[in-house]
């Protein structure tokens, strides 16, 4: 069983020539996620969501704090779906899949083809990424994350760069695939509806990278974005955001 343990995670970026001020991207985030749960991290742009995922994925160093991502006591295999597809433009779709596959065997190619078929892309395996639409590219990104047989799935606003209708159908895909595998998932988004539709639990981040709320979502799956129950939770989440904003504004005035 996979566990993500995050303790007092802090990231401060030093000033750079283009932005001559230090930025606190994460201000002491703590959380613990265990088992087959789908956790959404919800926050506006610049609240440190990408930074959080990068640190969890081990591609960025925290300034302070600790992260442990383990599966049965050993470091867990991570699958990462990025905000943009991040495919090698000069490799075919299938080669892009094989690029991340570390345990090579004679079954490698068949596995890659299986995950491509899971996202409905069997027919385009030989094409270059630029020949696909944005939605198709992102589906390759999702298939790629599943291909490495991850214990933990990290997803960074995977549907934010496409139109709402495509995003909707891809969320549907994702729900179905996830229900099938039930990997521990950390899903970052700025879209309240998306978070409620997909997650078992929503962590709410505010700018500065501080978790200010943690809401369980106990709704039946599969969910539709227009279900009344989903709408109700959405309203509640938005209400809590508003009161947080009011508190921050109030706090600012007092300072």
């Amino acid at each position: 069983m996979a566990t993500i343990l995050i303790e007092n995670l802090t990231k401060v970026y030093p000033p750079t020539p283009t932005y001559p001020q230090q930025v606190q991207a994460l201000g002491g985030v703590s959380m613990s996620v265990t088992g087959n749960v789908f956790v959404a991290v919800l926050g506006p742009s610049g609240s440190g969501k990408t930074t959080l995922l990068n640190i969890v994925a081990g591609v960025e160093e925290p300034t302070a704090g600790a992260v442990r991502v383990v599966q049965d006591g050993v470091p867990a295999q991570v699958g990462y779906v990025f905000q943009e597809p991040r495919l090698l433009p000069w490799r075919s779709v299938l080669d892009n899949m094989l690029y991340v596959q570390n345990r090579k065997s004679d079954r490698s190619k068949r596995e890659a083809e299986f995950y491509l078929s899971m996202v409905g892309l069997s027919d385009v395996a030989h094409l270059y990424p630029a020949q696909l639409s944005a939605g198709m590219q992102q589906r390759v990104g999702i298939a790629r994350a599943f291909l490495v047989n991850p214990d933990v799935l990290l997803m960074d606003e995977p549907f934010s760069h496409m139109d709402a209708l495509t995003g909707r159908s891809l969320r549907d895909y994702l729900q179905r695939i996830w229900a099938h595998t039930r990997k521990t998932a950390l899903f970052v988004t700025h879209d309240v509806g998306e978070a409620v539709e997909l997650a078992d639990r929503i962590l709410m981040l505010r700018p500065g990278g501080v978790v200010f709320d943690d809401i369980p979502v106990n709704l039946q799956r599969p969910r539709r974005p227009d279900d009344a129950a989903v709408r109700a939770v959405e309203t509640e989440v938005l209400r809590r955001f508003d009161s947080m904003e009011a508190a921050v504004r109030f706090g600012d005035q007092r300072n």
Partner: protein
Amino acid sequence: MAYDTSVTPDAVADLSAREMRRSVMSRWGLRAGVVIGWLAFIGVWYVFSGAVLGTQQLPPPHTVAAEAWQVVTGDGFGATLWASLLRVIVGCTLALSASIVLGMVIAYSAWWRGLLGVLTRFFVSIPTVALAILALILFGVSGLGPMLTAALVATPYVMSSVAQGLTGVDRRLIVMSESFGRTRSQIITGVLLPSSVLAVIGGARQAFALAWRITLLTEVFASSDGVGFQIRRSFESYDVRGLLAWTALFIGLMFIFENFVFRQLERRAFGGAHVSQATAESTQ
């Protein structure tokens, strides 16, 4: 309740200092790398000079430095340098003015692009050494050959990079200007020229680097003064020390122009916001 910062401002300052230290250290690490690189370069030179080729064949760095110093302080250095520099500047100016005109022509006319493309391919496939000797045949031993050859060789390259800069102009800005009823000349002065300043500066820098190389080469064959002539004289008297000393001076000169003249020009043009990489790529 919901709103609390787990990290106090003091702690953040502390942490930030740690990140700063980290980035400063990595910066110093890279600087140390540069020093190590130069030491290794000089070390390898000493090894080759002492153990592989012999000091006669390859004088060690300090001998070459001493020779370079003698050249600089001796008489005639200023005249030699000036002879070459003048040719470079004239050649470069010719190349750049021709390139701006031709660059505009090929950026906006497919027909001219086709014709100049064929001619360019022809000129580019003539080895520069052959051009240098042709200059000698045409002009004899004179200052004119190096200058014109430099201009001729540099023009195709500079022309195409100027044209690329012009075609790279954001078409949406032009469409926008048209939709507001701007005239052709307003679009040229308001959109095209400002957006292609970088291309022209890049072209100037490229022209300069190329002009130096070609002038030098042509002076080797067809001149009785200038840096290229000195290099040839060193070669003919088997004087490796002089050859390397003149070469080192030449490289130093290029470095000075690159870092002081062209950097400054770019800073001027872009208010420091756009600092480009050294021109390695553009130096054919």
